[in-house]
C-alpha cells in the first residue's frame, strides 16, 4: 500500500503555510512537508547514525513531532526547515550517544539502506530542485572555510561531538577548537546570508 500523494495544491504552498495547515490537523500538509524534507532528514540521520533502522526511526519520530508540535512553532523565530532539521539532528545525536554505549548488531550495515532505496525513488520535483540548489550552495560555502574549520564543524554536526570531545579526538587545545568552530560558523553564515538562500523557504 502506498499512501495517497499530497493534493496538487499542497506542493505550491510554502513551508509556513503547510505548517499552519498541519497545526490545524491536515495530514496532507504533513505529507507535503515529508515529500519536501524526508530525504534530507534521512540523509543526515544516516550520516550521523550509520544504520538504516535507526535513521528510519529518526525520520518517523521527526515528522511525528512536527505533527504534534506544529502549533508551538513560532514563525518569527526561524525557518520551518531549520526547525525540522533541528529536531532530526537532536534526535540523531541523542540516539548516537545511546548507541555508543552499546555493541552494534553484526547485520546492521549501510548496504541494506542502499537496497531499500530502490523500492521507492519517487520524489517531489521541487524538493529535488531545492536539494540540488542547497547542496551546491553549502558545498561551495564549505569550500571557502579552512580545512581545519570544516573538520571541526563536521565532527560537531555529523559526529555529534562536543567541543571538548573534538579537542580530544584531534589532540588539539580546546581553545583552538572553539576558535575554529566560531570562525568557521560565522563565515558560513555570512556566505549563505549573502546568497540569501532559504530566507523565504522554498516556494516564495
Amino acid at each position, binding site marked *: *500500500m*502506498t*499512501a495517497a500523494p499530497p493534493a496538487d495544491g499542497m506542493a505550491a504552498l510554502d513551508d509556513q503555510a503547510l505548517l499552519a495547515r498541519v497545526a490545524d490537523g491536515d*495530514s496532507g500538509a*504533513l*505529507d507535503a512537508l515529508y515529500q519536501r524534507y*524526508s*530525504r534530507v*532528514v*534521512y*540523509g*543526515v540521520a544516516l550520516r550521523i547514525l550509520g544504520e*538504516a533502522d535507526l535513521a528510519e*526511526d529518526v525520520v*518517523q*519520530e521527526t515528522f*511525528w513531532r512536527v*505533527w504534534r508540535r506544529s502549533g508551538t512553532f513560532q514563525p518569527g*523565530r*526561524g*525557518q520551518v*526547515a*531549520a526547525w525540522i*532539521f*533541528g*529536531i*532530526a539532528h*537532536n534526535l540523531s545525536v*541523542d540516539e548516537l550517544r*545511546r548507541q555508543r554505549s*552499546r555493541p552494534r*548488531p553484526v*547485520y*546492521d550495515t549501510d548496504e541494506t*539502506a542502499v537496497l531499500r532505496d530502490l*523500492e*521507492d525513488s519517487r520524489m517531489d520535483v521541487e524538493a529535488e530542485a531545492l*536539494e540540488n540548489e*542547497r*547542496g551546491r*550552495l*553549502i558545498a561551495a*560555502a564549505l569550500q571557502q572555510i579552512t580545512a581545519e574549520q570544516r573538520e571541526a*564543524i563536521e565532527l*560537531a*554536526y*555529523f559526529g555529534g561531538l*562536543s*567541543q*571538548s570531545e*573534538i579537542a580530544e579526538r584531534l589532540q588539539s587545545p580546546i581553545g583552538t577548537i572553539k576558535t575554529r*568552530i*566560531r570562525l568557521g*560558523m560565522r563565515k*558560513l*553564515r555570512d556566505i*549563505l546570508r549573502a546568497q*540569501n*538562500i*532559504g530566507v523565504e523557504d522554498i516556494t516564495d
Partner: protein
Amino acid sequence: MLTNDHPQDSIPAFVLGTLDIDEARLVSAHVAQCPACRAEIETFQELLSALPYASAPRQPPPYVKRQLLARIAASQIDTVTTQARSPANTAPRWMPAVMSGALALWLVFGYMLYNTNSRMATIGGELTNSQQSIIQLSQQHSTDQTTIAQISAQRQLEEQALAGMQTQIAIDQQVMVFIAAPETIHRILGGPDQHARATMYMQPSNNQAVLVVEGMPRIEPGKIYQFWLSRAGEWVPSVTFDMTNDDRAVQWIEAAAPVDQYARVMVTIEVAGGAKQPSDKVVLSGSLSASPPASASQAD
C-alpha cells in the same frame, strides 16, 4: 550591541549543538531572557537550513511514511474515541468511532480488513443465495430432499465461516485499539534479510503486545516462525506463526511478565510445533530497552 556579558562567542557552537553541557546550560539560560542573543541566533537560520544538505539526501524506505501516517491516523482515532466517550455511556459509544476510524487505519490494516470484509461479503451473498434457493425449492414442493439437505449443509458451513470472520474482525479491532492507545510505544525489529521487518507495539506494565510482521522469507514445509523474548539472559519461547497466506501477519503476544521487563526479542525459524530453545536461524531481532530518541530540546 552585544556586551561582554553576552555569550556572543559561544553562540556559533551553541547553534551547532557542540557546546559542552555545562556551558550549553548557561548559554541556554541567558538566551531565554536576552532578545539580542536570540537575534544573533536567528542570523544562523540560513546556515542551519542548509547544513544538512552537505550530506547527500537519501530516500527513506516507503514503509517509514506508511508507519508515520498510520501513527497519525491512530492518534486521530484515539482523539475521536476519547471525545466520543462520555461518563454516562462509556462502553458502546466508542465502537462507532473506532469503526469510522478504521478507514484511516487501512494504511496499516486496510489490507487485512479488506480481505476479511470482502470474504465476509462473499459468504454473506452466498448465504442469501442459499436461503433463496431453499425458499424456491420449498415453494415448488420439490421432493428432492437431498438437494435441500445439501444446500442446508452448505449454509451451515457458510454460517460457521461467517462467525469465524466476525471473530477475526473483532480481533482486528482489538489490535487497532491497542495500537491507537496513547501509552503504546513501538520497537522495530530487523534482520539480515532487508525485506523482513517487524514492528512491535507494547505498553508499560502490560503483558500483552502486538507484533506486525512483513516481508518474511519463504520457509520450507515443516518449519514455522517462532517469537522469543529474552529476560535475565534467557530466551523464553512465545507464539509460533506462519506466513503462507499473507505478506503481513499480526500476532498477539502474551508474555508471562510485563513486556517491558524483557530486554530483547527475536523471531527464529523452528520445526513446526515450536521449540523450547531457539535455533540459530534468527530472522528478526531487536532491543526493547532502546527507547525512541527522547529529546529535541534545542529544537523545541
